[in-house]
């Protein structure tokens, strides 16, 4: 009988040992799975070896190698698109072939649309819009040919990318000289701004056009029809090699008016109207630029050399500057408004409601044809920047206007810099305020506070530090109960910090003496701990250590 009872206990013990081993005695924090939508593999297929005679890309690979390119300009402190086009990845380490007017409109004389950055959107899935992952820089550009080669340099958050680690899908170069009239071609691209997936159209080579200085195959004519956003994209032959770049004439060229749409609230007023920058997306196609014309650019980009267009043109810098360039101090004038702004009256600051402002300066040692640039910032945010080719002679006085057509310039501290020469050396800069300068100090107590409070948050039962605890300090006079009744309003918070991975915290705002502050500490797994009306006096050290122990 006794044996039987002991055996029963033993059996239960064994079962429980097994169960508890399965559950684990150390109960790690709950592991959750990734969201139900499993991440779709975005790793592109491994790059094809670039041997001669190898098979070209399949249609899937062609689609994967077509990218959408946004030209981005800083608006209200953020990079926002002002135009879009397409491009083709031509090497696994991120070289992209596109049009010059997509990569750098300034190369064709359109400096006002010159982007601050180029964003590259790659295909993830065919039925989804492309995902913007990278920034790219111009490596070689020829405004006359309207071709450019750009290189992926960093991810969207600004982290540098090692080109050799990219392993992107790419399209191999075909030979556009081997094309014949009647050959079939496939065209891939992104016709519009945002939201649209990759589009495909096809047709046949219907002929070639010659141009002086270029040769008999300056343009490939085709009966394929496609919209403006396809410009810069991929035209491939049946074997899957790139043989041409669809090229659209955008605004600024002879006679071809493009369709310009407002799609983003670029001026931040909450409305989509004529006050916002419009994005050109229409126009008709001249044809395809044969890919062989791009070979010198590709070679220059791959070898890291500077590409010099043999076709010249007044829109390209033709001189590197004398090295003796000098700009004088900036004086400020009110402007007469609009693009044809003239200097009116000299001022030392601008009143609120100004529509245009002119920065004037003397210059000397300049050479016509050398590059120069300007950049305007307000309260630290870049407002406008552009680069140009100098054509004002060796010395004299000039001015540059900053203007807003529909709304007055926002109040703030304005700063302008002018650069010139091959290395864009900064030659002069100036500051002026509009409307009396920036806003008041948002935290009036900061300057008056004297005590810096710091310490460690730890668990009193184990003496282990507690990271990621949130520490709030409320405005003097507010208790925890007040704050809770106010639904934890942000306005009641004087200072806030979190404890770091070793449990240590330091309040970023100093506390004043002889007034009561309320501290509230949150940490998951513990009840909310607070202390109302804590007062520091003149006897307390200016660096005050206050460790906080929590118990559960």
């Amino acid at each position, binding site marked *: *009988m*006794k044996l039987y*009872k*002991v055996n*029963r*206990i*033993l059996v*239960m*013990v064994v079962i*429980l*040992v097994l*169960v*508890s081993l399965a*559950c684990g*005695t*150390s*109960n*790690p924090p*709950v592991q959750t799975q990734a969201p139900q939508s499993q991440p779709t593999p975005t790793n592109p297929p491994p790059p094809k070896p670039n041997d001669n005679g190898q098979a070209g890309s399949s249609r899937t690979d062609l689609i994967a190698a077509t990218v959408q390119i946004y030209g981005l300009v800083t608006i209200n402190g953020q990079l926002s698109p002002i135009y879009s086009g397409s491009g083709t990845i031509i090497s696994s380490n991120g070289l992209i072939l596109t049009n010059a007017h997509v990569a750098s409109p300034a190369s064709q004389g359109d400096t006002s649309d010159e982007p601050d950055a180029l964003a590259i959107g790659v295909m993830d899935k065919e039925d989804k819009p492309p995902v913007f992952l990278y920034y790219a820089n111009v490596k070689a550009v020829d405004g006359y040919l309207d071709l450019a080669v750009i290189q992926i340099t960093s991810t969207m958050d600004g982290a540098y990318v090692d080109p050799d680690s990219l392993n992107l899908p790419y399209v191999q170069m075909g030979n556009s000289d081997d094309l014949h009239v009647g050959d079939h071609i496939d065209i891939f691209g992104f016709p519009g701004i945002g939201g649209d997936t990759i589009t495909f159209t096809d047709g046949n080579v219907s002929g070639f056009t010659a141009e002086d200085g270029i040769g008999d195959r300056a343009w490939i004519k085709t009966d394929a029809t496609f919209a403006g956003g396809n410009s810069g994209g991929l035209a491939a032959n049946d074997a899957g090699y790139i043989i041409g770049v669809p090229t659209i004439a955008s605004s600024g060229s002879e006679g071809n008016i493009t369709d310009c749409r407002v799609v983003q609230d670029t001026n931040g007023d909450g409305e989509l109207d004529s006050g916002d920058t419009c994005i050109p997306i229409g126009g008709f196609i001249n044809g395809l630029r044969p890919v062989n014309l791009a070979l010198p650019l590709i070679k220059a980009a791959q070898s890291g050399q500077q590409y010099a267009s043999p076709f010249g043109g007044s829109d390209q810098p033709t001189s590197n500057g004398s090295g003796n360039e000098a700009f004088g101090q900036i004086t400020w004038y009110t402007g007469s408004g609009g693009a044809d702004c003239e200097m009116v009256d000299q001022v030392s600051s601008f009143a609120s409601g100004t529509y245009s402002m002119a920065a004037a300066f003397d210059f000397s040692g300049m050479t016509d044809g050398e590059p120069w640039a300007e950049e305007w910032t307000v309260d630290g945010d870049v407002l406008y920047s552009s680069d140009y080719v100098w054509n004002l002679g060796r010395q004299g006085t000039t001015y540059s206007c900053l203007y807003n057509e529909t709304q007055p310039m926002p109040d703030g501290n304005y700063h302008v810099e002018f650069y010139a020469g091959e290395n864009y050396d900064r030659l002069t800069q100036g500051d002026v305020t509009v409307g009396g300068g920036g806003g008041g100090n948002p935290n009036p107590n900061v300057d008056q506070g004297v005590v810096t409070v710091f310490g460690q948050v730890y*668990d*009193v*039962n*184990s*003496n*282990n530090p507690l990271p990621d605890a949130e520490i709030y300090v409320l405005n003097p006079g507010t208790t925890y109960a007040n704050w809770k009744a106010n639904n934890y309003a942000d306005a009641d918070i004087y200072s806030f910090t979190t404890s770091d991975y070793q449990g240590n915290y330091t309040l970023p705002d100093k506390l004043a003496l002889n007034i009561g502050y309320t*501290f509230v*500490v949150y940490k*998951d*797994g*513990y*009840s*909310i*701990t*607070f*202390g109302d009306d*804590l*007062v*520091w006096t003149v006897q*307390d050290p200016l660096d005050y250590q*206050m*460790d*906080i*122990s*929590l*118990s*559960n």
Partner: protein
Amino acid sequence: MPDHICSVCKQPAENKIKTRWFCHEHFTSATHQRPHAWRSFVLLIIAQIVFVGLVYLLDAGIKPVLAGSALVWAGVLMALIPAAIWMVFFYLQDRIEPEPKGFILAVFLLGGLLAAAIGTPLLENIFHISKWIYADTAATILGSILVVGFSQEFLKYAAVRYSIYRSAEFDEATDGVIYATAAGLGYATLLNIQFVISNGGVDLGASVIRMAVVALAHASFAAITGYFLGRAKFEQEPIWWMPLGLTLAATVNGLFNWMRGRVVQSGISLTSASSNPWMGLILAAALAIITTGIILWLVRRDIRSALASETGRLS
């Protein structure tokens, strides 16, 4: 010829307590009084506190530098000591028939294993206690009683009820308290071990307080259940008797948890520390002394009335 058989050993029985019959041997043991039980328990609690003080002072004085797995092992070892102190006291009891050491150990282990296999996973992975129980006072009290209290006390009850309860070794009124306390200690010891391991090692001086609190508290809650179990075995009780016992234990468990949180965590101030674990130890010791005092008094009263009514019957 005798009509009745002993409810413990199935031998002929001549004595009865209320409606149950017992043979002479088991009647004697069922009504055995332990004259020094109360004193022993108080000494036991004092021993626990002394242990805490010793470790605390040693840690402060010597400041041993342990790190990594050595610290974890030291913590686990230390978690076993409060239970060991209790066990020693059980065995030192003045007894007619000591409980088999194996059985006490078995129930102790069972309590610990139930905590590991069911108790902690239920509270952490299914109920996610730590996410909502601190929301406000009502959440803490109700959550502590309904979820923490009932689950923990039921498991300790099960550790006794489904193992040793029917055995002939369970033959005294105080056996209920003893075995249940062993289960409670096993539960508490496992909680302390999990505390050490999930924290990757804890400061010995600081954590010994917490360990003693947990041990004293869980032993006390379990003792309540044990008293009810003991009486249920030897006297016929109504159907609501045992559920009442469990509910009482769960309620004391929940209320103690809430009270301990209130006395230990005092709030941020410049003049004092924001929490004081020693208050928790004082509360736990008070709980243990009061609970065991009440229970032992109740047991003594039950035995006296059983003896009196039996004497009355036989004379």
